[in-house]
């Protein structure tokens, strides 16, 4: 455990060094969030009764999504990991007396957390000061806020464990570009990154909520605004824990299999 903690610390402090990049990210994400809010505001003007949740909750969802983008964006994968698999450096990684799976897991979490620490607060603070329906509202209640924090952590773990599957699949395909494109766009769609899940037709939404993708940003962002009933919240947390266990188990097994038959690319 200590080994992985130091992997984590190493990557985390390293990630904190990229402050200029973070500034660029903040501007981009702020502009992005602003445009998203304008679209939803236009739809709200067109037909307010068709909105599945209050406009203020939608705005909070969008701002939190931008603020915590680094935690949940599946496309922000570690290019270095793909590089080690492609150029053969994986051989060195496998010589170490550590589990490759756990090492990559620790380091992915560290990268995402360090990015989020640098980027989230400025966005959250500015968004909180925007005029009422357009800004980040206060959480529905203290209970919701605590649950939001818990599911935020679970969602992060879930995102990383799904990305781990893609890293490991790269062992088998060598060229991960096509795989990544498909995985990125499919999970963005099912996770509620394109449009929040409540905006989908009801039947579809019910199915989508059961998928592992819905256990990432969908749960914490909706709990924050209080647009889930207490039964829905319980079920969502349960699903998060279930999928996290299932996916990490599958990832570990697959990693084991991949390591047995790994061919190191020369060069």
């Amino acid at each position, binding site marked *: 455990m200590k080994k992985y903690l130091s992997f984590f610390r190493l990557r985390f402090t390293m990630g904190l060094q990229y402050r200029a990049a973070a500034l*660029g990210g903040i501007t981009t994400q702020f502009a992005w969030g602003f445009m998203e809010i304008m679209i939803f505001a236009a739809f709200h003007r067109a037909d307010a009764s068709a909105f599945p949740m209050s406009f203020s909750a939608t705005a909070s969802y969008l701002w939190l999504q931008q603020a915590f983008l680094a935690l949940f964006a599946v496309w922000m994968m570690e290019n270095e990991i793909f590089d080690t698999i492609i150029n053969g450096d994986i051989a060195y990684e496998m010589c170490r007396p550590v589990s490759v799976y756990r090492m990559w897991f620790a380091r992915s979490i560290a990268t995402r957390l360090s990015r989020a620490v640098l980027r989230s607060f400025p966005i959250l603070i500015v968004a909180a000061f925007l005029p009422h329906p357009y800004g980040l509202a206060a959480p529905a209640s203290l209970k919701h806020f605590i649950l939001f924090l818990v599911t935020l952590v679970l969602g992060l773990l879930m995102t990383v464990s799904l990305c781990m599957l893609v890293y490991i699949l790269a062992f088998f395909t060598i060229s991960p570009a096509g795989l990544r494109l498909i995985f990125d766009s499919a999970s963005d769609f099912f996770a509620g990154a394109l449009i929040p899940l409540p905006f989908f037709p009801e039947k579809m939404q019910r199915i989508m909520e059961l998928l592992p993708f819905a256990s990432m940003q969908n749960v914490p962002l909706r709990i924050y605004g209080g647009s889930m009933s207490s039964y829905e919240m319980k079920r969502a947390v349960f699903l998060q824990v279930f999928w996290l266990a299932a996916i990490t188990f599958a990832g570990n097994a697959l990693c084991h299999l991949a390591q047995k038959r790994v061919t190191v690319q020369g060069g």
Partner: protein
Amino acid sequence: MRSIRLYLHYVSINIRCVMQYKTSFFLTAAGQFLVSFTTFLGVFFMFQRFSRVEGFTYSEVLLCFSVMLMEFSLAEMFARGFDQFSGMVRSGEFDRVLVRPQNEIIQVLGSKFELTRFGRMLQAVVMFIYGIIQSDIAWSFSKALTVIFMLIGGTAVFTALFLIYAAFCFFTLESLEFMNIFTDGAREFGKYPVGVYGEKMLLFATFIVPYALIQYYPLLYILGRRKELIFMFLPLLACWFLIPALMFWKFGVKHYKSSGS
């Protein structure tokens, strides 16, 4: 004339190069198709719930989205070299470009011709045809011509944006993340007519970065909401945006210091 021949030669080299890895090419093209397909699904499901936005119906939004996507993919296909320009500056490759007796823009343009964007283009064309069938626009010669003008103007505007994006690398060595909002962001948010984003955004998109000239105004003409002929020629006017972009690029080249690697 010679430079055009040279550019076409570059393109043919690039295509032959890509075609050596046929499977990879088709997979990436399919991936490109899929990426914009989920954006389309996003629009589709929003319109399952809402019947119109700011007076635009589903099929009208689709027309707008598809033309914008075509403009973007065309520009990306031709001007992809600018998109990856930061690598060229950092590796010192640009030094080699400068010593050759040939225009540097042609060389950078020719460094990469992204045929895989064909996947995105196909998605845009399918959506465009679907949009035309769904909407009841009375097509005329002038309206068809407007679409072609939109494609020309749009490709010019996005190429200019890529050029600016690349020119920043002369000063920062890294490509700037916030520029993405003007390229990828415009592609994403251009799925809805600019008018949806309110008065101020429309002013910005008219006079500063001319998105509205290649999207909103000609769309109004095609939909028959505005009859003035000027709306038909506005997309061509948008090509003015290439001038400041080129000037900025020239300025950057003058200040270029080799990264030394």
